């Protein structure tokens, strides 16, 4: 429940401070929590703080004492959704018009249309026949509710919600539930082939496209034999376009975000730039160096187990993929014969590899961020690390953590620690001392736990390291696809 509503419903008057552009999202969240009229005032994105406070303070305090209006004193019921199994009956041409309907969103600048049932593109019409074909590829009953198969802690930094094994998946942001058949409807619309369906059901268990916070902040990796069985692309162009499995499975996640999560920008989701990464990609477990474990093994599902791993796409509703720039051929020259700028930086000019390319990247990995890192690593780059002596991914995670230390002087110049340190009033965990008492030269790790980092061996072609945010803390990030077969 929206916690402010919980306080109000406990009989304690509240007033919330928010930005005007977030107002409709606030109202929607309040309504879903049973308190549609929660009082709020708008603060400014641009005015200096003292001037802003002078302006809003009278209204802020008045909201706690001003008598309730008739509307604020009334009760009511928000009607249920989901009892209409058939959306439309008619010809396919007529159906296309229904499924491609849009609504004008006045809460967005210039009031653009947003699709009611889709991602904005035409979809395959989910006739009973097509949905039945999809359902034939799972042993689960059509009316079975999508349920958490494991416990999930509250997500990283206290944002998002936890869940207990056996509880229904509440799709963010509006927390609807869904059945196996409803997932099949969205899979058909996305263009999935029926054999992809267990993967789509697993993504549903993982929260669909909305992710843990309703902002589309998670992407999906398939690890295990099913990736090859359904013809996923492991090589050049994993993020698309072109491969039906990679693309349509990702699209199904996006449709679930709309239809189960109720996602409408600036109405139910106050994210930022959105989440353009709607391709599901496979881990290339067959190309791992000897002894390196695939994600399926890392999470104890074994080599023969197929799983979805939830990848962190970044905070705040904006996909965040970085790339360290190597010139064309620059990486190969560095490894083969010690030529080029990478070799010069690392002091191995003229010395053939293997060399540790991470050494070249260290200066940028934590220049403007903190935490572990997820690397999308080409097989040949993984092999170089193996040949260099890293006989497991864990050894790289531990090495990276040791290399992540920066001075307190540097740490104080980062943005997130302002909140992660309880406004610098908290205790620094490695020293046990208050942050404010630590000298400038005290070294603090930017990766708290080595295993916050993650290596996913996949892709092909030119050697670039691409990297994203850490594994997400308290959430259980692996979901069994085999359960949904």
């Amino acid at each position, binding site marked *: 429940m929206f916690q402010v509503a919980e*306080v109000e419903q406990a009989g304690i*008057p*509240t007033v919330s401070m928010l930005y005007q552009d977030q107002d409709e999202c606030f109202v929607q969240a309040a309504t879903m929590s049973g308190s549609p009229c929660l009082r709020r005032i708008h603060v400014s994105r641009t005015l200096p703080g003292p001037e802003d406070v002078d302006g809003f303070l009278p209204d802020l305090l008045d909201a706690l004492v001003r008598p309730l209006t008739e509307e604020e004193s009334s009760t009511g019921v*928000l009607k249920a959704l989901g009892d209409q199994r058939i959306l439309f009956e008619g010809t396919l041409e007529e159906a296309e018009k229904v499924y491609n309907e849009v609504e004008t969103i006045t809460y967005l600048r210039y009031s653009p249309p947003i699709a009611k049932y889709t991602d904005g593109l035409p979809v395959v019409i989910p*006739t009973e026949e097509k949905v039945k074909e999809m359902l034939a590829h799972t042993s689960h009953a059509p009316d079975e509710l999508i349920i958490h198969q494991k416990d999930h802690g509250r997500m990283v930094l206290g944002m998002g919600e936890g869940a207990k094994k056996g509880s229904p998946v509440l799709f963010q942001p509006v927390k609807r539930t869904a059945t196996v058949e409803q997932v099949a409807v969205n899979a058909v619309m996305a263009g999935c082939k029926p054999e992809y369906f267990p993967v789509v059901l697993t993504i549903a268990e993982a929260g669909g496209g909305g992710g843990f916070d309703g902002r589309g902040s998670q992407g999906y990796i398939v690890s295990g034999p099913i990736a090859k069985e359904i013809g996923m692309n492991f090589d050049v162009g994993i993020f698309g376009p072109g491969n039906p499995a990679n693309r349509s499975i990702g699209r199904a996640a996006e449709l679930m975000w709309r239809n189960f999560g109720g996602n409408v920008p600036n109405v139910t989701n106050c994210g930022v730039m959105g989440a353009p990464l709607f391709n599901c990609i496979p881990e290339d477990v067959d190309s791992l160096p000897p002894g390196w474990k695939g994600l399926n093994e890392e999470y104890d599902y074994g080599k023969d187990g197929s799983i979805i791993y939830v990848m962190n796409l970044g905070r705040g509703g904006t996909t965040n993929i970085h790339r360290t720039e190597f010139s064309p051929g620059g990486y190969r020259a560095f490894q083969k014969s010690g030529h080029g700028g990478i070799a010069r930086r690392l002091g191995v000019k003229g010395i053939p590899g293997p060399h540790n390319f991470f050494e070249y990247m260290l200066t940028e990995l934590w220049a403007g961020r903190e935490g572990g890192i997820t690397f999308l690593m080409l097989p040949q780059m993984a092999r170089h690390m193996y040949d260099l002596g890293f006989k497991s991914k864990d050894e790289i995670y531990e090495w990276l953590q040791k290399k992540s230390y920066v001075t307190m002087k540097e740490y104080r110049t980062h943005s997130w620690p302002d909140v992660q340190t309880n406004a610098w009033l908290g205790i620094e965990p490695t020293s046990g001392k208050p942050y404010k008492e630590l000298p400038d030269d005290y070294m603090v790790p930017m990766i708290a736990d080595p295993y916050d980092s993650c290596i996913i061996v996949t892709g092909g072609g030119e050697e670039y390291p691409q990297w994203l945010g850490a594994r997400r803390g308290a959430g259980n990030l692996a979901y069994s696809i085999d359960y949904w077969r």
Partner: protein
Amino acid sequence: MVEKTYKCLNPVGNQAIVDLKPLAPRLDTLDGKTVVVCINAGGDQDITIPLLKVLPERYPNVNWEIKRKFGFSAELTEEEKKTADAMIAGVIW
């Protein structure tokens, strides 16, 4: 020729009925009352620092309790609810 018709299924998920409740009764005055100001520790300090400065200066008869917490939404524990007369939810994102 009559074109074939199809039953097409609804992609929208299930949402239970939500009972909509009235707001809590407002206070007759803030004087002598305990008002918890729940802010996001370290976030939007350009607003919260001057706010926390002026509240006791301009309204000295109110018992202001400041709760700094990093989170997604302002909230009170069951213990805090026992003594709070009102809450200002200053967790701004």
